[in-house]
């Protein structure tokens, strides 16, 4: 069920990533201030945006789970957060590399953008121990959904707080006072944003498909291991 459309989505993701990387390295001009090092921006910022949106999406799925009590939404929420955490790791590492090249330091503690992202990342890193500390599956899903909703609401609040804060060194992606990016840079950036968004969607679908397949096999095994009643070994059909 979850694997439907995975193949065309994967092809679209690879094609979009190839196109975006070509635009980044062969079309977008060099930045006047940072030069070639600014190319990190095209992978770092889209990853950060998609990761943060993924956390919010995880919260929306969690609301659907709490409203309907359908475990499907809990799986969607868990996988959305899981993939966003992986993207978050990539954001922190690429950001640290960019910081070292631009500012001469791997990390700057007095920069609100960096620290706020780290706080969000660490908040979601606690999702796993919190979730798996609860043994009862229903309670686990319910509590994890409450966590996902609360943390998901924190993400835009945190983003707005950082935007309102006086930034010291971290640049703004869509600058207003100093003018925005040139058209070629913006095109490359938007293509990369779409590509990373597609990648996130593909990985979420991939993970859900694998989890669903694993669950089906376990159900099948349980059904086969159960004692045969009335000489029939038929397996009950799945009700989803």
């Amino acid at each position: 069920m979850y694997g439907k459309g995975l193949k065309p989505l994967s092809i679209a993701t690879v094609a979009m990533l190839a196109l975006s990387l070509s635009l980044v390295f062969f079309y977008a001009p060099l930045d006047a201030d940072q030069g070639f090092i600014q190319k990190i921006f095209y992978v770092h910022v889209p990853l950060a945006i998609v990761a943060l949106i993924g956390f919010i999406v995880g919260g929306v799925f969690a609301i659907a789970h709490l409203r309907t009590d359908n475990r499907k939404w809990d799986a969607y929420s868990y996988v959305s957060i899981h993939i966003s955490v992986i993207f978050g790791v990539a954001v922190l590492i690429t950001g640290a590399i960019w910081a070292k090249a631009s500012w001469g330091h791997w990390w700057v503690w007095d920069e609100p953008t960096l620290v706020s992202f780290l706080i969000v990342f660490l908040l979601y890193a606690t999702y796993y121990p919190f979730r798996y500390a609860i043994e009862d599956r229903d309670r686990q899903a319910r509590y994890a959904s409450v966590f996902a909703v609360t943390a998901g609401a924190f993400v835009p609040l945190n983003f707005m707080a950082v935007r309102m804060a006086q930034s010291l060194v971290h640049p703004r992606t869509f600058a207003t006072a100093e003018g925005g990016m040139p058209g070629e840079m913006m095109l490359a950036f938007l293509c990369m944003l779409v590509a990373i968004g597609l990648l996130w969607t593909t990985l979420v679908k991939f993970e859900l498909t694998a989890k669903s397949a694993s669950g089906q096999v376990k159900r099948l095994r349980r059904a086969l291991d159960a004692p045969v009643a009335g000489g029939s070994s038929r397996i009950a059909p799945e009700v989803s």
Partner: protein
Amino acid sequence: MLELATLLPLAAPALPLDEAGKYVAGAYVVFMVLLVVYVGIMAAKLGRIEKELREVAAIAEQRNKGGQAAPGREAEEAAPRV
């Protein structure tokens, strides 16, 4: 005007390409490595699911050997579908 535009990056306080290239390559390599590691983990997971599926199929076949399975059915089902 065009000449000025090409000279601007050279005049700006940017890292020289040989030094900046290392950092840019590092950032993109990190992204790719994370992706490859994730796909590798998923591949291992799928391998485990396939193994479990084979075991379940073997249990089902053993049950069917009790007389329900048609002759030649086991061999047909045991062969992997391409």
